[in-house]
């Protein structure tokens, strides 16, 4: 194909236009390849941190490097997949003392806004539904990286942290004064669609 004098800049403009300026990229969280983790930690007696995770969840996000403030994310968690590496404790966590997974099988986070900060950090606001209660939470987000993967795809990853009192979501079981709060750590990698 022969390009005219006007053709080259027009084509370049079209390419730039299509790739990032207007359309935000949609990503699906890579739960299939397990490059995504939803972990939590609670203090045990105030002496140490106990870690656990949810093994089954799914979600998607959209992110545009040129307009990061428009980023959105939605994550659904299967609460019965809670795993703290101890069957008897997991059974207790699923019971009505904690997650009550028969009654509330799903937890959900849906973002409402994103405020980008410096050095790839930002604050993601949204609504968390847990134990049947929906409340606004703020997640501190860190952009970890993005780029082509070795298999022909494009990936982008973040880590987010938030902290809330379990009682705010109606989980009233008393684990002691130092164990009222739970911290959630979301390490998510998305594959561009």
């Amino acid at each position: 194909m022969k390009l005219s004098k006007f053709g080259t800049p027009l084509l370049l403009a079209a390419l730039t236009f299509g790739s990032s300026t207007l359309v935000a990229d949609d990503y699906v969280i890579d739960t299939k390849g397990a490059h995504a983790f939803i972990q939590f930690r609670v203090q045990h007696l105030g002496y140490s941190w106990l870690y656990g995770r949810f093994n089954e969840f799914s979600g998607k996000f959209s992110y545009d490097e040129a307009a990061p403030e428009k980023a959105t994310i939605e994550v659904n968690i299967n609460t019965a997949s809670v795993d703290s590496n101890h069957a008897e404790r997991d059974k207790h966590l699923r019971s009505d003392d904690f997650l009550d997974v028969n009654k509330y099988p799903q937890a959900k986070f849906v973002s409402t806004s994103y405020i980008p900060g410096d050095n790839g950090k930002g604050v993601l606001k949204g609504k968390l539904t847990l134990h049947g209660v929906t409340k606004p939470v703020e997640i501190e987000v860190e952009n970890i990286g993005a780029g082509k993967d070795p298999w022909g795809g494009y990936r982008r990853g973040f880590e987010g942290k938030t902290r809330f009192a379990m009682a705010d979501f109606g989980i009233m079981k008393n684990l002691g004064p130092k164990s009222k709060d739970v911290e959630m750590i979301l390490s998510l990698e998305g594959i561009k669609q």
Partner: protein
Amino acid sequence: MQFKNTTSHFGLIAISLHWLVALCVFALFGLGLWMTELDYYHQWYKQGPWLHKSIGILLFFVVIFRLFWRGLTPPPKALSSHKPWERKIAHIVHLLLYFLLIAIMFSGYLISTADGRAIEVFDWFSIPASITSINNQEDIAGWVHFILAILLIGLAALHALAAIKHHFIDRDRTLQRIFGK
């Protein structure tokens, strides 16, 4: 009283096994209900389950030996005053009691070993995990353990009521036999 059963009397071993199992079953049932409701900071929060599991595993060996002993020296014949329907129901209840005992102990084992951890029996020895791959194994096994335990206690109560009925209404020696008379 002799060790082995005869055609008319229970022996010392069978009688001892019967009352040992009965005592353990009621103790484990009460302990199980109590320990699962304890506050996290309660003194017995760790000790209760430890005792429940240790006694439960030991009871399994006792029940296995009891079945072996039953095969070796069969229980005495039913009293001639027992009606055919009484004999039939008594036999079914006895079999069900054994079945429930085994099923409860096995389901309890599947709760604690669901993550591959062994069960510590006091500080003496431990029983390793085997089946660990059932989805939400600890929850399903826990539910089965609880329901069957309630059934067992209900059936044991029926078994005891029947014995009391024989003693006070029929005025035969059914109940006395399990005391060695």
